[in-house]
């Protein structure tokens, strides 16, 4: 009990309006409207995203599922401001991120990305990685940022690892630390690009619990790309299935399984029905992708 009050004090002291347990959505509604992206308009003309529209409610966990190479990362990069879009518009809380006249969104701490293979800076310890954002934005002094970083790492169960370099910890730990590094910037949207790809099932399940716990605490909007259907349903409020390249929205499945979810939810009847529904839609696209691939090779 004693420790809890200490923690609460620390939360009160932190400048974050998104402190633990507020449970209040902080905005983060994403509108993706008729977005198209053509790579290299002069040359080969790869159309990666075509007339893709989705609405993501603030504070919702939105999972994107689709075949390999269909343009999911392209969509995420457009939201993050890593590259431009060719048509359409993307809005965050009704503010234009990119659209006509402004093809490329500016990069900002309101949208933080957790990258496909992890991108913690190898030359900084976990705590230094986490403290990086507030320091370069001059929102905190170095000491304050480090204190907050250690505190947030401890919340994510990484309290003892703040002084370790990313190369010294497991991939699961470094991925959790990367999410902490994103969250310290109090983003409106967390953009995750297959963060748990290539992890074994056991590590993955721990990652899921950790992410759900973090989500319950912060209620940050999550845009999560995955190949793993079980993961999509287990974590998401909505599962957006996208078509094979060019990427557009095929189907949205609402996940009605109540939160908090535990691993028992996985064996429920509701889960199985959803799984079938998603699987059917994804399989259809996968077959199309496969046939398209065969055509290209022929």
């Amino acid at each position: 009990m004693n420790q809890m009050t200490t923690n609460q004090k620390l939360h009160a002291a932190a400048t974050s309006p998104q402190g633990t347990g507020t449970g209040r959505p902080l905005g983060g509604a994403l509108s993706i409207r008729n977005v198209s992206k053509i790579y290299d308009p002069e040359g080969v003309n790869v159309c990666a995203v075509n007339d893709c529209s989705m609405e993501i409610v603030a504070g919702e966990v939105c999972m994107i599922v689709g075949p390999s190479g269909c343009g999911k990362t392209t969509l995420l990069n457009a939201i993050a401001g890593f590259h431009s879009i060719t048509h359409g518009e993307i809005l965050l809380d009704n503010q234009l991120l990119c659209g006509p006249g402004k093809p490329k969104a500016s990069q900002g701490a309101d949208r933080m990305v957790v990258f496909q293979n992890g991108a913690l800076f190898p030359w900084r310890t976990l705590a230094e990685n986490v403290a990086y954002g507030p320091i370069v934005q001059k929102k905190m002094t170095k000491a304050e940022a480090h204190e907050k970083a250690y505190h947030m790492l401890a919340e994510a169960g990484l309290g003892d690892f703040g002084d370790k370099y990313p190369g010294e910890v497991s991939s699961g730990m470094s991925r959790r630390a990367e999410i902490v590094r994103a969250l310290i910037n109090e983003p409106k949207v967390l953009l995750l690009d297959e963060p748990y790809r290539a992890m074994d099932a056991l590590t993955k399940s721990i990652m899921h619990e950790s992410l759900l716990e973090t989500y319950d605490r912060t209620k940050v909007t999550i845009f999560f790309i995955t190949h793993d259907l079980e993961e999509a349903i287990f974590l998401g409020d909505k599962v957006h299935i996208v078509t094979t390249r060019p990427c557009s929205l095929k189907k949205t499945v609402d996940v009605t399984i109540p939160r908090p979810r535990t691993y028992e939810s996985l064996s429920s009847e509701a889960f199985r029905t959803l799984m079938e529904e998603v699987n059917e839609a994804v399989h259809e696209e996968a077959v199309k992708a496969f046939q398209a691939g065969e055509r290209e090779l022929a």
Partner: protein
Amino acid sequence: MANVAHTATSAPVVRRRSSFEKLMSNTSLWRGMLAIAVFLLLWEIGSRFDEWFGKEWTLPFIGLIPAPTAVFAAWLEILPKAGYWMSWLQSFKRVLSGFLVAMLIGIPFGLALAVNKYFRDLFFPPFEILRPIPPLAWVPASLIFWPTNEMSIAFVTFLGAFFTIVINVLGGARTIDVRYLRAAQSMGASQWDLFSKIILPGTLPSIFTGAAVGMGITWEVVLAAEMISGGGTQGGGGLGFFIWNSYMGGSLEQVVVGMISIGIAGYLSSSAIRWLGDRFMPWKRLF
């Protein structure tokens, strides 16, 4: 409460071994020493073969080289002489000055090539034309350019390290993962932050690789330049001149002493760079 303060540690207490204990139980070290001992023994036998079995038993090549014990005796003889140590000092001074100037100019130059397209367009082509010219091909020209022998040697030494360092820095800085840059930019890093906090530390490993290779080349160049130029002035001809001089004087033992001295000097130099690398890149020590 699941939240554990970061100060709490529960690691089991492990008795730390002293560094002497570690050294003594280092099997690679023992194996290495054994290998050197066997090597010296074979060398000794090889070169003494004719003494033991008669002239017709002189082995090719190794039979003509002085035995390690003879070399060692020659070494003991010159160890107290100031001239020998002056040679060390002279060569070290040349290597270090050429190397340091190459680092000082090469690192910023390489980084500038990496981050600025205009700079790259302008300076990379001439750089690439000059780079393949071996440093020693510069010796005659630099003897003409520069007023003193010493300056010519310094210049050629500098060239030896410079090109290697620049190419490594450029390669390292250009291959930094774009995700690091994107992540930093999303977190609000300015252009200067990107350079100082991402590109610079991200290039450090390549800088040290370039330094290690460059250091090796500097030694080669210094030694060769000393032999060619006759070693400069006032008895301080450097180790290269020491070898040449011994050869001219017909002392094969001293030639080998000079060669081994260079081996040791090179080893000391690369150890120093490794040590600095560990200091500057604590995250690298783990791998």
